[in-house]
């Protein structure tokens, strides 16, 4: 028995009176709910004047449930309490209720959610068109699944059993050929009539009206993780309103399992949640590989499991395979700021997240926001200049391009931040790229350095002094390159901000705090009676035991993950010392002739759990400390 199991078992044997006590509280909720629902039901019944006799009449059914021993002998039969199951009156929504058109392009074998965006055949799907489709699809309880070359090449195929999907109904919605004769593009809608109870993975899949799909017939070999991720991304963006999760999964003919990236799922693991399943399309690329795409709608799919699946996909994206990088000590395009150059291979899992493809050429998706974390310091990137498209070979799927991106690390990045050794070398251990969509949702993350595989990335100190701008105007144009100056990643908690304001909390800096190896420290001064203190530090005698998982401080747009926390409880206030770490430097700030600098943005964020494991993470506590209306301590005197 391992230590976790021992603990789990022990919890299962705690004293009865403790359990009983907890049960008492636990049982209060259902009672409240029951009372509420009872009252609501009574009110409804009165208003609708439904005879109560109808309800009474329904209470005659008393299903019996046998209790069966392990040798299958029935030892008793019990009668279930009477329950009334209301008839299902609402129609099931479509399998994939996508608020827009999901377009499949055979030119590059990719799906594109292309509302308002051009797609690779040169046809521009306007927002109005997409909306019109979506509206019609909704009316027909169907979904647009593809744009295809002609009316014979998709889904309705030539006699292959795999293609005989008779339960689908197709409707030509619109011809959007765009003037390309050889690329006549047609949109289809399909309708699903499926029965989840018949859906069981065995030798094949029996779906809906009895159509059996023999998975053996699907060509072997699955390897296009880019497509998988693209689909995974699509499916996780779906958010059906009925609480179900719609997943697009790729089915591997070889092992008859469902794949999401390199993770394999047995659909039977989730059989309890499968409501609908439908073969949507196969991808047949170069006649060498084939995938089938299975739309699966999960009802009551536990959100933590969904989160885990999404997390898996993000976790996989941390795999640095196919991504290489180097530093540019001084990149002219960026006013000689240092730059990080990242080369992305087409085969890398990053590719589809970063680029949209037009005419088989990658184009950077400009709506995304990039954050690069180097040795614990976050740099929110404003300038990405420029990708270099490697055209030294024919860009086909078999011989794909690689693309180089240059990220402007901005004026706040300096090589002097790192402790180069006597050989003028420094080994970077932690460089991570995070990609966010326009809603600040983390969609892609990769660690460029895998310390389990190597010691790190060794950088030679630039031989000639590079000149990132030495004079930084704290409110001027220089610092604007860092987006963090404008808005922190996370939304502040207005309630906490209010509480801090009411509590008259203050902060200041310690230039070099001995307990933190002479690192700079941010010192919070909190009223012991304050709400924030009570909320975060219940045990004031030992506040160390009460801290959250990760603390971060954002100072002028740069995020520092706090390396150490100490407390001083001896005065009338609780002093919290936060170690800003070795990457913090006073030289970042331009002090005026009086040796003073006024910090405009100092914010505090606290996670109560390991945010690295979350697909999207937000602070549990967030407070803006710099606010002249309430706080002091903004102006700092340059250390001697």
């Amino acid at each position, binding site marked *: 028995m391992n230590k976790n199991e021992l603990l789990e078992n022990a*919890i*299962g044997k705690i004293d009865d009176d403790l359990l009983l006590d907890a049960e008492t509280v636990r049982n209060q909720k259902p009672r409240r709910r029951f009372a509420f629902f009872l009252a609501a039901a009574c009110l409804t019944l009165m208003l609708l004047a439904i005879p109560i006799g109808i309800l009474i009449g329904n209470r005659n059914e008393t299903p019996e449930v046998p209790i069966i021993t392990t040798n299958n002998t029935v030892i008793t039969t019990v*009668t279930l309490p009477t329950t009334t199951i209301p008839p299902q009156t609402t129609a099931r929504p479509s399998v994939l209720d996508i608020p827009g058109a999901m377009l499949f392009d055979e030119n590059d074998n990719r799906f594109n959610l292309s509302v308002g965006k051009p797609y690779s055949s040169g046809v521009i799907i306007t927002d109005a068109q997409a909306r019109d489709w979506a509206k019609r699809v909704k009316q027909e309880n169907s979904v647009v699944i593809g744009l295809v070359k002609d009316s014979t090449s998709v889904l309705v195929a030539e006699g292959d059993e795999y293609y005989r999907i008779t339960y689908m109904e197709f409707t030509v919605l619109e011809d959007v050929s765009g003037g390309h004769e050889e690329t006549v593009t047609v949109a289809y809608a399909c309708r699903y009539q499926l029965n989840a109870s018949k859906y069981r993975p065995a030798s094949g899949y029996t779906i809906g009206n009895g159509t059996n799909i023999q998975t053996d017939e699907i060509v072997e070999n699955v390897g296009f993780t880019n497509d998988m991720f693209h689909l995974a991304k699509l499916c996780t963006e779906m958010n059906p309103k009925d609480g179900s999760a719609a997943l697009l999964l790729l089915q591997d003919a070889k092992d008859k399992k469902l794949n999401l990236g390199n993770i394999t799922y047995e659909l039977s693991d989730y059989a309890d949640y499968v409501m609908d399943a439908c073969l949507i399309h196969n991808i047949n690329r170069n006649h060498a590989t084939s995938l089938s795409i299975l739309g699966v709608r999960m009802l009551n799919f536990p959100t933590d499991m969904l989160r885990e699946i999404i997390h898996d996909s993000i976790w996989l994206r941390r795999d640095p395979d196919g991504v290489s990088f180097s530093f540019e000590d001084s990149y002219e395009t960026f006013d000689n700021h240092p730059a990080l150059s990242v080369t992305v291979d087409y085969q890398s899992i990053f590719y589809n997240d970063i680029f949209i493809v037009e005419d088989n050429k990658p184009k950077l998706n400009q709506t995304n926001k990039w954050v690069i974390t180097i040795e614990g310091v976050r740099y929110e990137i404003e300038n990405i200049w420029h990708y270099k498209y490697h055209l030294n070979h024919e860009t086909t799927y078999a011989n794909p391009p690689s693309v180089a991106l240059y990220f402007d690390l901005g004026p706040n990045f300096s090589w002097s931040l790192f402790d180069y050794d006597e050989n003028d070398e420094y080994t970077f251990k932690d460089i991570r790229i995070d990609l966010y969509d326009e809603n600040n949702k983390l969609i892609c993350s990769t660690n460029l350095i895998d310390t389990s595989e190597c010691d790190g990335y060794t950088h030679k100190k630039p031989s000639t002094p590079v000149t990132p701008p030495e004079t930084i105007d704290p409110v001027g144009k220089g610092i604007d390159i860092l987006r963090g100056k404008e808005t922190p990643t996370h939304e502040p908690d207005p309630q906490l901000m209010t509480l801090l304001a009411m509590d008259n909390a203050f902060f200041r800096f310690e230039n070099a705090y001995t307990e933190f190896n002479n690192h700079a420290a941010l010192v919070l001064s909190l009223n012991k009676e304050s709400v924030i203190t009570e909320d975060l530090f219940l045990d004031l005698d030992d506040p160390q035991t009460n801290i959250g998982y990760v603390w971060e401080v954002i100072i002028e747009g740069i995020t520092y993950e706090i390396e150490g926390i100490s407390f001083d409880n001896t005065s009338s206030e609780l002093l919290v010392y936060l170690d800003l770490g070795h990457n913090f430097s006073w030289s970042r700030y331009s002090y005026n002739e009086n040796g003073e600098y006024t910090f405009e943005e100092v914010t505090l964020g606290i996670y109560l759990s390991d945010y690295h494991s979350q697909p999207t993470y937000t602070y549990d506590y967030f407070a803006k400390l710099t606010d002249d209306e309430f706080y002091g301590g903004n102006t700092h005197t340059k250390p001697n």
Partner: protein
Amino acid sequence: MTDEQIVSLYFERNEDAIRQTKIKYSRYLLSVAQNILSSREDAEECENSTYLAAWNSIPPHKPKTLSTYLGKIIRHLAIKAKRAQKANKRGGGEASLSFDELSECIPASFSWEDSITDDTLATIISAFLRTLPDTERRLFICRYFHCDSIAALSETFGMKESRVKTTLMRTRQKLATHLVEKGVLL
């Protein structure tokens, strides 16, 4: 029917004991099992197994409180089923989350004292729980015995979810400290 009357039925080998047990405790038992297994069917299977186990174990056992007696049985069966399920190597609902949290309070570098048994550990944990304020203790039990979700606890206890998480985290840390002090965690 009171617990005492139901237990008497068991002692009389009257099969109505199971029926009465089910009427009184089915919902409670299902909620515990379903929190762990995330599957209605599996939970119902555990529920039936629990009745069978109760049938086989009463007598000789004569539980004073039937709910906790059955609750322990079904939790044990559900955890056992969960461990056996291949699916749960990839996680299995609220139980996995709560167990993961629990395991967090034991640093990887620590190990149990060699002779420790789950019975002994249960006694130590029970004693520890008695030192806690009511809310903390109830939160802990609801989370780690019944495997209730954070959202459910938030609703039950009328606290913000972040407050629930904070309180649980503190309790876990206190528990770890307590176990070290008691010499069972080395």
